[in-house]
């Protein structure tokens, strides 16, 4: 089959690789009809995620048709149309039973590696480093789906792929980011990052009853999408305006009730010197993450408010304003999305017409054009917001 593989920093290529096969009785093989490039794929593309190997198949947002099932997968049949959540979860451990699927205790066969870095291991993830399992990803014609009796959700309507594909990651991730804010009537929510996850965090905050949602980014086309499609009430271009002062002005000096970091480890700072400081440390691997958005969110948040972190971080940060956080009594909530818990409720919202997630798609490419998609997405060429690939 054809598959997009990582072959070094800033290099991906589409290659012929062997077809996947059933490795265990709870596996299914899915023939992929649609897949996508995620912002977190760029962290590997840019070479900031350790434990990648040349030849790894990337991709963790995919859907398609079940073409083979292991003998213990009673929930799926050949021919079913499914969306596959990016976290691999066994469904049997304490974490899964508590619906904390992204910290499944069994799905990472390389848990020992993750423990060295994090103390405990999170779940395995498709196409997302060897530290998180070494699973082949979904930017390919076929994928093996472990624990297929637990993860994939059947799509039994005739909605096009574009409307349901993002149940695999970015819609639930954005939704969880908003849910973690525990939105109360009258709440103002600020969202750093108007990439695809940020768009869904904005849209979800509105769905969950936020009084007002403010989007912060530096790309005009992304801010326009946030306002016109996702439903942001206000936008801030952080290269044009002082974020703290603007947020204070927008909220009568209170600050946002909750702040969502949908940026993660490769943030930018409007101040050239500060950005250069972190950029250099990051490039020299002295700091694995550049937490500009997070720092700004902490300083901007109203005392007693909530910081919700859904951007991808990999390791360590410094200059972390813990003093501001403690003295303002902030609540921190974060995590890789427990996608499985949101599949059914969010599919219901799509079916009911409350949201059409396809609004983020700006580019559709064939699988063989995946490397071009990475370049466009990385460099924000041609107003690129989200690339969908059709194997």
């Amino acid at each position, binding site marked *: 089959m054809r598959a997009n593989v990582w072959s070094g920093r800033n290099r991906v290529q589409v290659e012929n690789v*062997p077809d996947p096969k059933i490795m265990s*009785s*709870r596996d299914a093989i899915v023939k992929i009809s649609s897949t996508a490039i995620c912002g977190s794929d760029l962290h590997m593309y840019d070479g900031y995620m350790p434990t990648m190997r040349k030849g790894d198949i990337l991709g963790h947002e995919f859907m398609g048709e079940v073409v083979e099932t292991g003998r213990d997968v009673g929930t799926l049949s050949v021919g079913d149309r499914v969306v596959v959540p990016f976290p691999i979860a066994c469904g049997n451990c304490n974490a899964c039973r508590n619906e904390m699927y992204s910290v499944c205790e069994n799905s990472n*066969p390389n848990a*020992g*590696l993750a423990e060295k870095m994090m103390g405990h291991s999170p779940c395995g993830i498709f*196409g997302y480093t060897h530290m998180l399992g070494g699973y082949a990803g979904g930017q390919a014609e076929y994928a*093996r789906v*472990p624990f297929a009796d637990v993860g994939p959700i059947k799509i039994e309507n005739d909605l096009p792929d574009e409307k349901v594909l993002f149940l695999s990651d970015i819609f639930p991730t954005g939704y969880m980011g908003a849910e973690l804010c525990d939105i109360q009537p009258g709440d103002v929510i600020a969202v750093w990052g108007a990439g695809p996850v940020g768009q869904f965090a904005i849209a979800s905050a509105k769905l969950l009853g936020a009084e007002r949602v403010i989007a912060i980014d530096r790309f005009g086309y992304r801010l326009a999408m946030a306002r016109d499609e996702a439903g942001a009430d206000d936008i801030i271009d952080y290269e044009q305006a002082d974020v703290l002062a603007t947020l204070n002005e927008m909220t009568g000096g209170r600050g946002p009730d909750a702040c969502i970091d949908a940026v993660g480890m490769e943030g930018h700072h409007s101040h050239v010197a500060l950005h250069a400081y972190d950029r250099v440390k990051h490039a020299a691997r002295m700091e694995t993450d550049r937490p500009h958005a997070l720092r700004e969110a902490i300083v901007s948040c109203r005392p007693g408010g909530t910081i919700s972190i859904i951007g991808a971080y990999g390791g360590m940060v410094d200059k972390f304003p813990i003093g501001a956080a403690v003295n303002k009594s902030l609540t921190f909530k974060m995590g890789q999305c427990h996608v499985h818990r949101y599949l059914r409720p969010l599919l219901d919202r799509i079916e009911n017409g409350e949201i059409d997630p396809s609004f983020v798609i700006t580019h559709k490419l064939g699988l063989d054009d995946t490397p071009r998609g990475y370049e466009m997405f990385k460099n924000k060429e041609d107003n690129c917001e989200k690339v969908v690939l059709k194997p």
Partner: protein
Amino acid sequence: MATSTTHGNGSAPTLPDARPPLPRAPSPEGEITRFLGWFSLGLGVPQTLAPGRVNRLIGVRDDASSRIWQRVVGVRELAAAAGIFGRPRPAGWLWARVAGDIKDLALLGVAWRNQEQRTRRLAAAAASVAGITAVDAFAAARMSRLPADVTKDPSFRVKASTTVRRGPDELYAFWHDFANLPRFMAHLEAVETRQDGTSHWRATGPAGMKLEWDAEIVSDRPGELIAWRTLPGAEVVHSGIVGFVRAPGERGTEVHVDIEYAPPAGKAGSIIGKLFGEEPELQVRDDLRRFKQVIETGEIVRSDGTPEGTEARRLVAQRPARPLERSSS
């Protein structure tokens, strides 16, 4: 997964006390090393305190300059003795002794060129130093090859624990059927239980090396613990205990494993070193990880990069995350 035993509730039994005692055997490397330590001490004390007598004994002209050299060499010997006795794994100090020996031979060579001192005693001294150089080099080489964790202590102990979402009785029963153990212990090939309650264990080491041993159960409390010990003649001498403690709340059962391996001696020592590499804990932790996977999910969890499932060596040697070639299935 944790590497030290912590208990979820205060009433948990203290498992290490129940572990059966381990038969001990001295290791040849340790014996030779201790001998060399005493040798350094025996040489260093008279060289520092009575350099003149030592000069006369080995046939070197006794003058101010040679006495200073004797004292310098004596202090070096005392430092070597302190290093050998004070360090758990004194390979570096043994190599320092080898370097010192070579310098001594050079000093004796200088003395030899001086006609007045050419005596039988000087020849004997040179022969002695050459002999001890050989022993030093042998011991240093052996000590350098031993894995760090093996030489730190005469025996070594591995502890690991995990929590499994099942009751203690079920986990105890699964573990007690020793035929189940190879399903999650990576190195085990088979375990057969005999009529008399003893069992025969077969394992595979690196490069297909076969290892076998017999073991007996020394303590067996249903739903609580199983303790075992190898029988005389075992190739990997060890004793161990696995305990099952109900976890607080509805969290299932804590499984605590505590194994002690005999001091490395001869073949078995190097085998243990090779089996466990530099991190003997990893193997036991991975075994427990697989135990949890088998019990909770019904099987070993495999990925494309780790097709055999959790295994210590896979942490350093991953294959790419892409499907395996058909031929390798």
